[in-house]
């Protein structure tokens, strides 16, 4: 018992004026107080010990947390750097893909430029001859003929100028295609865009595969309004889909040629359609179709069925991103082995 309480108990028990019952009651109170005292004393002691331990552990925990925070910070910075490197690599990759597709276009572009150049050359040659004729007429004083030749020259110069502008627009288009996308949407005539890229793609494959032959069917919806798109991006999509379609029918042509008695007419279609809210660009071919086991993979980056060196595996992946992320549209495919494939680009008006 606590010595103070013990002393109090002694004094109570020695006190004559207290009755026996009162002494019993007081002694019980003292016993209870002693128990409470012991409990409080014990609690205090234990709390002190626990406090000491908790403080040490807490300090250590804070130190460890700080170390972990620093490690997380370092990881975050490293990740940030990796992300930036990745973005740079991705941008580089996209540019490489553009340049690769530009390379594929070279033959088509050359062909497209050759036509206006031929006109320019021919009309300029003709112009020189007309000037010679004009000189003769002038020397003879035949001003009636001079006037007629001058009119012809004027018409020729107009044609030269027209074809010069045509070549200019092709070169500008090529430059636009190779340039990093500005990301700016502009109202574009989708039918014209399709037509231009169809020409480029067709001449491109013709230049690469001398024996390439396919029936090209176009069906452009005349009701199509101008649509706000990033033309060089959607142009790349059309080009990629057409290149794939040409590749598919050409592959099937080569396979079929080995089979005796086979009758195969390669066909590539390019259609546009206006449904009121959406614009569709549809590229279809009657190639071999895409096998079921790879159907889910064809939009994955670096997936290609072409032989090594012939495809980067980025064309469809980038096309998918351009249509979905860049334009809020959809890029879907329907395919049937042995029948062909149809890719549909669905773009919103806005």
């Amino acid at each position: 018992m606590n010595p103070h309480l013990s002393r109090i108990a002694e004094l109570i028990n020695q006190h004559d004026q207290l009755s026996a019952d009162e002494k019993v009651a007081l002694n019980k109170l003292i016993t209870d107080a002693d128990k409470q005292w012991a409990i409080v004393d014990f609690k205090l002691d234990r709390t002190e010990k626990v406090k000491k331990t908790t403080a040490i552990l807490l300090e250590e925990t804070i130190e460890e947390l700080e170390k972990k925070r620093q490690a997380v910070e370092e990881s975050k910075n490293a990740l940030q750097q990796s992300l930036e490197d990745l973005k740079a690599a991705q941008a580089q990759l996209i540019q490489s893909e553009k340049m690769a597709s530009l390379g594929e276009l070279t033959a088509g572009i050359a062909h497209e430029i050759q036509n206006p150049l031929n006109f320019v050359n021919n009309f300029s040659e003709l112009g020189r001859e007309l000037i010679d004729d004009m000189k003769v007429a002038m020397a003879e004083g035949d001003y009636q003929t001079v006037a007629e030749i001058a009119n012809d020259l004027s018409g020729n110069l107009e044609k030269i100028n027209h074809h010069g502008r045509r070549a200019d627009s092709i070169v500008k288009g090529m430059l636009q295609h190779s340039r990093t996308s500005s990301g700016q949407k502009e109202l574009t005539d989708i039918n014209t865009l399709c037509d231009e890229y169809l020409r480029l793609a067709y001449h491109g494959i013709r230049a690469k595969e001398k024996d390439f032959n396919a029936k090209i069917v176009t069906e452009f919806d005349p009701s199509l309004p101008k649509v706000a798109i990033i033309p060089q991006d959607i142009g790349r999509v059309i080009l990629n889909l057409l290149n794939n379609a040409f590749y598919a029918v050409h592959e099937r042509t080569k396979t079929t040629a080995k089979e005796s008695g086979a009758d195969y007419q390669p066909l590539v279609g390019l259609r546009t359609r206006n449904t009121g809210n959406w614009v569709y660009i549809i590229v279809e071919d009657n190639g071999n179709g895409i096998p079921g086991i790879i159907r889910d993979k064809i939009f994955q980056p670096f997936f290609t069925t072409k032989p090594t060196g012939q495809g980067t595996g980025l064309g469809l992946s980038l096309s998918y991103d351009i249509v979905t992320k860049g334009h809020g549209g959809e890029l879907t495919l329907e395919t049937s082995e042995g029948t062909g494939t149809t890719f549909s680009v669905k773009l919103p008006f806005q």
Partner: protein
Amino acid sequence: MLAKSIKGTSPEDINSALRDAMADGFRPTLAIVFLSVKQDRAAVCKMFKDSGIAVFGCTTHGEFIDEELGKESITILLLDMKEEFFWIYLRDFPTGNYRAATSEIAQLAREEFARPAFLISGAHMSTDAEELLKGFEDVIGTEVNVYGSMAGDDMSFTEQFVFTNDRESNRGVVVLALDEDKIKIRGRATCGWKAVGTPKTVTRSEGNHVFTVDDVPVLDLTVKYSGFDSISRDAAAKDTALLIATTLPLQLQREKGDPIMRPGLIVNFDDGSFICSGTVPQGSKVRFSVPPDFDVMDTVIQQAGDLKEKEMPEADALVVFSCAGRLLAFGPMMNMEIEGIRKLWNVPMAGMFSNGELARATNGNLEMHNLTTCCVALKAYK
């Protein structure tokens, strides 16, 4: 089944209490005996043998039958269980053959009962008590009901005993096998110790022998957290070291299930290692833990109440195993927890302070626990 609990400070006291208990015609067949290592076990056992009463007993760190906690005393739960409903076995495990010892007992019990359940007590500080439990599971299955404790020795942590009428062992296990088709037995262990600090890795251990944590001798690490600058590694510091080990126990973190307490029970001053009551695998994560707030005693009582409500609405008798570490942590308040549990069923009870408790925690596996209170209720089917 009738039950009575008696207590005394000597075999003579017990003899007198036994006569009083039997005065009304009560004829016990089984005595669950918890006593101090200082008491005359042989005299107590002989007395019961002479009275035709089977003994399941062990030494303790303290014993009780009510809120008044005994010290260096004897407490006994007397039961008039039909003799064909129980069987008592005692086996030594001198070579650490814990699993084989209990496996053999389980085989024998299964020959007696279709569905045996067990109340057990083991002796010796280095016992891997989980191996004892696995021995039962090997034979009966993982759903077997086993409850029990590791014997104590009045906090001297030197030598403990388990015993029955004719035999005792300081490195063995005593088992009370019950016919579970006749006697219902249910128990639950509740702990409440709070983990503190960050998880640390056990960098060297063998079974229940933990050498280093985070490459530091576990004793040194524990001493550091206890607030002591250092501790001398000699016999004089033994009690302090043990106090530190038991009041700042390791808590083994597990991928599945709740963490489990693993305090050091034997401190090796040579290498600063602990021998714990159960396995602490090398590479596992541990945290140090501190005693919970005092209201955790209410949690223990609530858990016992949950056991009563869901599994054991009625009981004939109650056996309580409480870790000696709780006695150190709750001091003069420990009796509140004991009394709270007793009042739930309000039936005769006997309990002890132990070196470890064997039971299931809530939704847990059958395991060796520490710093828990495990209450076990018994009821004969009518």
